[in-house]
């Protein structure tokens, strides 16, 4: 990019760096409308055409296009996290009821296993207390 040409194709199309062709074309349409409404804009229709050509034909692999300024640099930095308009994936509903009995069994197993191991490892005469370990 020469000093006189600091155009950024993605910014001209109003799309994030690395946007695919489909998104670029949508950006082209959106910015064309904007140009019709504001003819005295910074860029012209020719710039839009240049930008779309760059994105669709020239920049084959954006990750390797080090001549293009990357905006945003970190797409996740400003992206909205999960929320009402960006809902998290839906799990299917559960088919069981909460069971205290299952928890009780797990607690018993866990306690038993832990005690046996701790006793066996820390107290030499543990077999006196846990005869069937």
């Amino acid at each position, binding site marked *: 990019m020469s000093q006189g040409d600091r155009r950024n194709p993605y910014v001209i199309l109003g799309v994030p760096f690395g946007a695919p062709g489909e998104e670029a074309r949508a950006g082209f349409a959106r910015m064309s409308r904007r140009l019709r409404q504001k003819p005295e804009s910074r860029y012209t229709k020719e710039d839009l055409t240049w930008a779309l050509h760059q994105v669709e034909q020239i920049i084959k692999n954006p990750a390797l296009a080090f001549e293009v300024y990357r905006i945003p640099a970190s797409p996740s930095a400003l992206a909205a996290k999960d929320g009402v308009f960006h809902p998290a*994936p839906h*799990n299917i509903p559960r088919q069981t009821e909460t069971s205290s009995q299952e928890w009780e069994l797990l607690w018993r197993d866990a306690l038993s296993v832990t005690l046996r191991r701790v006793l066996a490892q820390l107290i030499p005469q543990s077999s006196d207390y846990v005869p069937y370990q």
Partner: protein
Amino acid sequence: MVRAAAGLPLTLSQLAHIADLLNLEKGQSESDWLLLLLADHTLAFADGGGPPPTHHQGDHSNIAQIAQAGAKTLPERVVATHLGVPLSVAPEELRQLAVEAPSVLDDLIDAAMISVSGDLEQVPVVLRARIAPSSLSDDALKEMGHEWESYRRAYEAGVALDAPASTPAARHYAALQALRAGDTSRAGDLISDPEGILVSVVSALNTGRIDPRVLSDSTTWDVLDRVIDETHFLPSSDAAGLWHAKQALMRVFEWDWEEAIQAGKQALRHTQEEGIRDEVLSILAFSHFQLGQDEAAIAALERALEGRYGANLQANVGVVAEDMAPDRAAIHLGRLAAEAPSLDLRLAAVRRAFSIWSRSRPVWEDEDQDASIPDDLLGAMRSLVVAHIPLDDHRETMRLLAYFDSEWASDPSNTSSSPHRGTWDHKLYVARAARDPSAYIHALASALSETPDMDWLTGERDDFVASIRGLIFQDIENVAPAAYAYTAIDVGLPMEPFDRVALTCGALISICRSLASDKQEPADAVYGHFKTALAMVDELTPAEREMVNGMVDMAGNSYAASVAVARSAMLDEGFNALNTVGRRLYGVPKHRINWAVLADSLRPLLEMADDSIRALGRARETAQQPEIIEGIDGLAIEFTRLRGFAANPWSAF
């Protein structure tokens, strides 16, 4: 304690005794016991053993972390999640839990306390739909009728959901899509979220009044863009910073650099969150760059890079610094090349960095020994050249290293781990790096004889020939390039007839100029090369012939003149020798002279005259300039006279 005793073949009194032994307090719950035991077990072994530790009612959040690490079996790890540490299970453990404790598994899923590590394909589809629905294909979702997730995906993909909908999921997402576009007319179809955010959004759009709670969900900001402004955010909150940052980004996409800078500065005032600040600094840099404020742009980016590494930020410095500070651009791209996560990125970064760095240097024409590549870039190139990269990239990197890191590249052991070490693409540049033209020429000739059709190789040869030719005429008195030219010809370096003729003539002119001052003439081999080149002139196109004609004439004249000068000196020496003999014989009666011995002693003179007459005849064939021809003819006459005296001494004395 009853529960613990039930899991072990112990009586309550035995268990109480054990608790005493382990310093477990009877007043604590069994869950505390378990967690403390797990934690102590871990700590004890981390410390290399030792006596059982003393337990105290402690901070569970710390203990839980240790307990999680100490938990070995699945029951232990499940139970340990009770203190808030999520559980990660392998697919087979998930299946085990689904069979042995399905209700517990559902509890963990609902509490978002469990995740699967490993290959999700090993988890049954129904279980995946329960724990990781995003891992299912669209077809799988459709097959199992999980329409909530199907509609969510359609909504996120921007698929129009305005068709009449019959199910709650379809109606909800159609209404959500409408609401996102600012249309509240279908709000009645929305399934409310637990915090009531959606209801607040609808209210804000209808009334223009905002419930501050709604702003805690940043996904609402774009929807409420026309009704919210900075006054709705708490000053100096991360939310305010994020809002201003998003405003700055929007201004960039509206091509309004000045407003983007204002919004960016506001964002920096409000947030200390590094990720947001780095992004804002990048936006500021871009806007300054567009306004021609290059120093401010670079300063902003370098500030962003002070914290954690960001490949895109690093690449952006390369763009901004390219015009005003190529060295800085190369340094940043060099660092990117050194740290980039993939070979493709590293290669692309190296190419870009090198292109920027070399742009202001005439390195390709003049081997600039003093030019030093930024360390990071050099390091990246060294590591790339031994990596599994495509052969073309390896060759290009070796070529650069041969120029700019010749000492390192010329040592084959430095690149012996390269998978391309056996190729000419590699060996040729090792030879070139050694800065021994003769070795390089031999390598080039060998490579061309084995693989004559490789474009890069013929290009390398053409560059070499053009370079040698240029050097010959750049300093015609310097015979080194001419010597390399003859080395190339001697080893049979394949080249086009035009190049062969031009190179031979140029070298001949240089050699003759050099020898003339010492009154010496070129060796026979040089004449042989010239004759071969002359024969090749017929193979040239008319245009090529026209280009070389002047050069061929000049070479022929140079050769003839060089021979004439050298033989003229020899002629003088010959007559001097004859005169010396004449002086010695002066006054000696002819009948006392042993003519046979005298003829023998003059034989070298005779042979020299013969050789000179032959050499002059050869030289005359190459000469075009009348003065040189005339001079050669005169010399030939004199050598003939000398020959006559040497052959018949009595005619002279």
